[in-house]
């Protein structure tokens, strides 16, 4: 299941870097595309603005199939306060930009599953992961920020010897 999570993140990250090279952040001393996995980073007092934060929540496994099918729920949190040049008055527009970017990077809704634990580098596995269409929750106003959560179910077949 961890391979599916890792693959989902790297797929979205690579697509985001291609779609909007300007959405970047500096995290742990390096510049990266503006997307991160919450449980793979240092705990933060507040979610960073203008980046996508992946939070893994529910898990279900269907064992009635020849290969167990894992269903992993991913919440993608994002928030924005708009731009400084517009004094934040464009926060509605920047949230809409993030909605559109997220929708774009989630298509096509499948990717080759990769194993990143190998010391030789990422290796392609035998199956693909695929995911549902996102469910966008209502935007929530938190002081000067607009925040939204999009929920996606990611599906992955468990391969032989996989965690």
């Amino acid at each position, binding site marked *: 299941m961890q391979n599916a999570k890792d693959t989902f993140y790297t797929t979205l990250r690579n697509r985001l870097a291609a779609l909007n090279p300007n959405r970047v952040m500096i995290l*742990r001393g390096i510049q990266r595309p503006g997307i991160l996995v919450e449980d793979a980073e240092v705990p933060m007092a507040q979610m960073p603005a203008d980046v996508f934060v992946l939070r893994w929540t529910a898990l279900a496994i269907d064992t009635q199939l020849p290969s167990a099918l894992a269903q992993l729920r991913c919440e993608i949190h994002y928030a924005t306060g708009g731009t400084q040049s517009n004094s934040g008055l464009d926060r509605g527009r920047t949230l809409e930009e993030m909605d559109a970017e997220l929708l774009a990077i989630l298509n096509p809704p499948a990717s080759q599953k990769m194993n990143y634990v190998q010391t030789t580098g990422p290796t392609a596995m035998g199956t693909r992961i695929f995911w549902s269409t996102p469910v966008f929750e209502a935007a929530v106003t938190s002081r000067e920020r607009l925040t939204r959560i999009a929920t996606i179910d990611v599906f992955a077949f468990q391969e032989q010897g996989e965690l």
Partner: protein
Amino acid sequence: MSDLSIRNPNQSAQLMADALLRAGGGMSISLLMPPAAGDSSDAGQVGIHAPNFQQLTLAPAAFRRVQATAQEGQQPKYELLISASAVQQQVSALQLTSADALFDSAAGVVIQNTQFLIESRSVSESLGQIYLYRLLLREAHALQMSVS
């Protein structure tokens, strides 16, 4: 109407803060900083590679608990007072733009081998010069040790 009265800033507040911090314990603490050469690999971003945080020592500092644990499950909070002159030295040494940049990039604080997370920070100023940084800390959960 602008206040145009002349006040000459000097180092007296910083010197006094340093003296008080030394008198009140004068301990050394370490900020956990990312390595100069960051890990940009896939494995580094999904939690496989160790982050190899480096410890940046700051002194003098004073550390204390700010509230007693009143309810079950409520985490105690701690306050850390750090000398502004020590912070400024490290900001200059690391060629950072400000102390904010230093604290923003810190992953936590190590005090007597215990790791804490930074919840918030504030400063104390005199004549426009910062003489003390105050960090509100929360104890990090016990981390699993890897056995080699």
